[in-house]
């Protein structure tokens, strides 16, 4: 449960500017979606929160702690930021079974065995994987792997949970169920979430706040109903209309 603040974030690779001037406040327990066409910079913004990318200028804070501010030479490495992340490719470790995958963050942090077992049991039942703890990942379906990834992201009670198109590799039916499940778990935990997607249905059904992006700029942000009722320009209107 934390706030996340982007202040005038810029990101460029050499001369190539990816993010121009990105400012955003995310509240405690808020579910925020970054929505926009592929290549518009959503993933880059998300990864800057985790520390897997560094912003070129501006500052990022989690709660009151600045985690990245190149002007003041502040950079907290990913392993010290205490954020969870769920990747599009699941990134479930193939050499560990379900239990070991989920327990890994706790082991790294030095929890003792019984604590680990309790926490994992709890989270496993929340993501509905009970009974599969001893399975190896290659014996899991895509949906189950994504649940493992979700559990692994949540088990250490991170300040923020970051999700990068977590459902795009799943089939339509499973995607629908997962949408509801993720949202419910997020609300139960009261955890702050940033959710990246190019699928406007996902964004509109799950989020408290939607940030619509294009070419590295924020075009519009607001609640789903705000945006649906008052699209700020043709791009937004077009974008939320497609796929219906």
């Amino acid at each position, binding site marked *: 449960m934390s706030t996340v603040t982007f202040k005038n974030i810029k990101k460029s690779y050499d001369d190539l500017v990816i993010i121009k001037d990105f400012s955003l406040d995310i509240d405690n327990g808020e579910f925020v979606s970054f929505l926009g066409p592929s290549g518009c910079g959503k*993933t880059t913004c998300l*990864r800057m929160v*985790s*520390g*897997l*990318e560094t912003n070129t200028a501006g500052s990022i804070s989690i709660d009151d702690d600045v985690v990245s501010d190149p002007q003041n030479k502040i*950079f907290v*490495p*990913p*392993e*010290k*930021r*205490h*954020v*969870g*992340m769920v*990747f*599009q*490719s*699941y*990134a479930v*470790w*193939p*050499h560990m079974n379900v239990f070991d995958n989920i327990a*890994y*963050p706790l082991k*790294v*942090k030095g929890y003792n065995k019984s604590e680990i077992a309790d926490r994992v049991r709890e989270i496993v039942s929340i993501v509905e994987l009970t009974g599969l703890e001893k399975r190896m990942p*290659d014996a899991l379906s895509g949906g189950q792997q994504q649940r493992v*990834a979700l559990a*692994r*992201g949540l088990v*250490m009670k991170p300040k923020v949970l970051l999700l*990068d198109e977590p459902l795009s*590799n799943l089939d339509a039916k499973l995607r629908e169920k997962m949408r509801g499940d993720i949202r419910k778990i997020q609300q139960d935990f009261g955890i702050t979430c940033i959710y990246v997607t190019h699928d406007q249905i996902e964004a509109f059904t799950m989020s408290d706040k939607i940030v619509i992006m294009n070419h590295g700029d924020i075009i519009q942000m607001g609640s789903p109903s705000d945006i649906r009722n008052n699209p700020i320009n043709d791009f937004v209107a077009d974008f939320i209309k497609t796929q219906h």
Partner: protein
Amino acid sequence: MDLIKRVLFSKRMILGGGLFLLFVFCLYPFLTLFFKIVFPQGGFTLQHFEKVLNSKSTMVAFKNTLWVSVGTCLMSTFMALPLSWLLTRTNIPMRDKWRSWFCLPYAIPPYIGAIAWIYLTNPSNGILNSVFGEGFFNIYTNSGLIWVMGSFFYTFILLSLLAALDRMDPSLEEAARLSGASPIRVFFQITVPIIFPSLMSGILLVLLASAASFGVPAMIGNPAGIYLLTTKIYTLQKMGSMNGIFMAGALSILLLVLATLVLIINQRILSKNSFKTVSGKTSRPSLIDLGSLKTPLSIGLAILFVILFVMPLGGITITALSKIQGKFELSNFGFQNFTRVFFETDETPRALMNSFNLAFIAATATTLMGLILGYINKKTKLKGRSAIEILASLPYSTPGTVLALAFILTFSAGVMGIPIRLYNTLGLIVIAYFAKYLNFSLRTTSDGFGQIDDCLAEASRVSGATWWISMKTIWFPLMKPALMASWFLVFMPAFSELTMTILLTGPGLETLGTLIFQLQEYGDASGGGAAVLALLTVIAVGLINGFVKFISKGKYGL
């Protein structure tokens, strides 16, 4: 005439011919080797094996081979593992440059390294010993042998790891970082277990390469009285007696069995344990910021580079330019060795000519053959075509010493009933190169065919072209980059081949490799002659490698 041409260039004739040659050169010699040793006079006998196994010196050679190979594997792993991490996962400056530089020994024949390290660290007048004191370093030891082999064969593991690390989904490691693990911890708990099959496969390749290596143990081991299986087989064969040949043959079969075992284990590991690490779209890996370690690690890399490359190359250069070894005065340096080697004997021009011709013919023949086999492999539905790759890789993975012996036993008197005397001719050498390097060609051409869509050729056939015409007008041009790469990939190692050639060579048949070997072993007292040729070999390899990389747009070459 027209009919003959049509039959000769028909699809069936060409493809059938290709398969026939594949059998003759890639399988038949092994069968012959086996039968000649096990049924020498028609009756079954294991006496040659018994003789070999009862001989104390061959058992010592076994043991030496084992220890040197294991030592080389250890050294290679300890070098390749940290290097692969540094060069793929961190923001070390000049990453791509370091990457190609540290892979370079892969293309250089290891016996060049043996020569260089002899110049640097032979106990009496090694260049380093003239700095540190006489006898400070002694290359003529087990560790000297391991050091030289390791300094080349680590590239097998490095290349295998680099490929695996590049292929690996970066989010696997990123997820571990976000779980709170430091970069080093991620490497050992996540990365290494996931790329373990590739690591093991690289290690086994090193095991195989060190057990099969001939030049280094011959130059460094023999003077020290340390014999390995390959040098033992060589000694037995050079004895010239039938008994010697039979013992060499039996020993070869044992070495072959060892090599096959290693390969089978390798196959097992790769097929059982290989995790599917590529899944869906992946992000670009975020590089680990080395921060304040950047400078010390860069300096470390530079030192390693100097030790592995600059010093050996320097040793060769100094030796090549020295009139008298061990005298470091300006007046002692000049091009005297060059003129002597090139203009005062006819051996050098002959060796260069032979090497060029052999490599040229072998490269052309394997490439044509690769074209045919690659076509069968990728563009036909022929049953059992998967055997092609296995057959072609058989001579490649066979230790060169064994392969040469099998070729001597099989083809000395002719090929398949055609009575041409091949023993003591370049013909025998060229077919041995052909068999050994066919695998390189097949792999590049199969790659090439795999990337070309069938419909292109179908379009030309529909418009009435015969198979041969469509081959000539469609496939050849499209395959040109792959064919050129294949040609040079064979030409390069063939030009400086030593292991097989030394067994197959005879009077007047010297090649670059055997001439360097002979100059180093017996001939040139000052050592300058071997140095001159070694230096030129390194330069040639560097140039050809750069050229291959250029024409294949970075796909082949290092």
